[in-house]
């Protein structure tokens, strides 16, 4: 997608975050935080020229099996052509990553890895963990050309 498309999705998810309670609506909150982060990642990668903006009609792709993503040659080649990555871990190995992009991917990976207990479970979200999620998201977002301050 284009950078502007990603920014519009970030803004939609951030509007939702501003209307949800991170504890009472924990599952939705953490899910939306990750989705906003994924679109920030793609906007930043396009801006840096690491991945291309794809015009209307192209789609991001997802592997049929998350665990087999790296071994699946068809998926690997499709992903290399696709402009958008649904998750930070779907980065094709041959894509060269800058220092800034590495920081972004590491922080988004933290959200992606930690979200399961909260989105797919009922583990209470401690204030300490919430602060870690917020910190990771704010770092990811700072690299994306999203106007305004995050409503967290």
């Amino acid at each position, binding site marked *: 997608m284009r950078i502007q498309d990603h920014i519009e999705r970030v803004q939609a*998810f951030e509007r939702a975050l501003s209307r949800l309670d991170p504890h009472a609506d924990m599952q939705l909150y953490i899910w939306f935080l990750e989705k906003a982060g994924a679109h920030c990642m793609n906007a930043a990668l396009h801006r840096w020229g690491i991945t291309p903006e794809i015009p209307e009609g192209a789609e991001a792709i997802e592997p049929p099996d998350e665990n087999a993503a790296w071994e699946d040659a068809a998926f690997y080649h499709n992903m290399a052509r696709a402009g958008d990555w649904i998750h930070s871990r779907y980065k094709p190995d041959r894509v060269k990553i800058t220092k800034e992009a590495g920081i972004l991917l590491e922080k988004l990976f933290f959200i992606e890895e930690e979200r399961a207990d909260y989105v797919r479970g009922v583990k209470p979200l401690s204030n300490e963990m919430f602060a870690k999620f917020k910190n990771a998201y704010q770092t990811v977002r700072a690299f994306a050309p999203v106007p305004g301050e995050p409503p967290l």
Partner: protein
Amino acid sequence: MKREDHAGVAGRALAALEQFSLPEDAPVLIEGSYVVAYHVLNGLMHKECALPEDRHINSPAHSPLSLDNLPEAVRPVWQAFEDLQELRIAYVWSPGTPSDDLQKRLEGLWQVFRAANQLSKN
């Protein structure tokens, strides 16, 4: 996670999504429905003894199971989840603007999820 926990989460998430509206919240409603679908599907799979409570299916796309080898009661939820996956690609990961029938499609999915969630509680 136990089936009653899944049912509780799904019910609260469905209620929370009522504050959002199309077209501006399309990505939010679709991704929020994804969370609902996950909990409804797994709660019902546990209820039908088709999946133990310590195992979970993230989504139909990431599962080796198919519609044919699922309990009858789970099939409408599975199909609704597959529809939702299509909506996600069409509206969250493609630049297209929401079509006029998106509201109707989402309402149809929510109806399936509500009914299944009720079944899961009983």
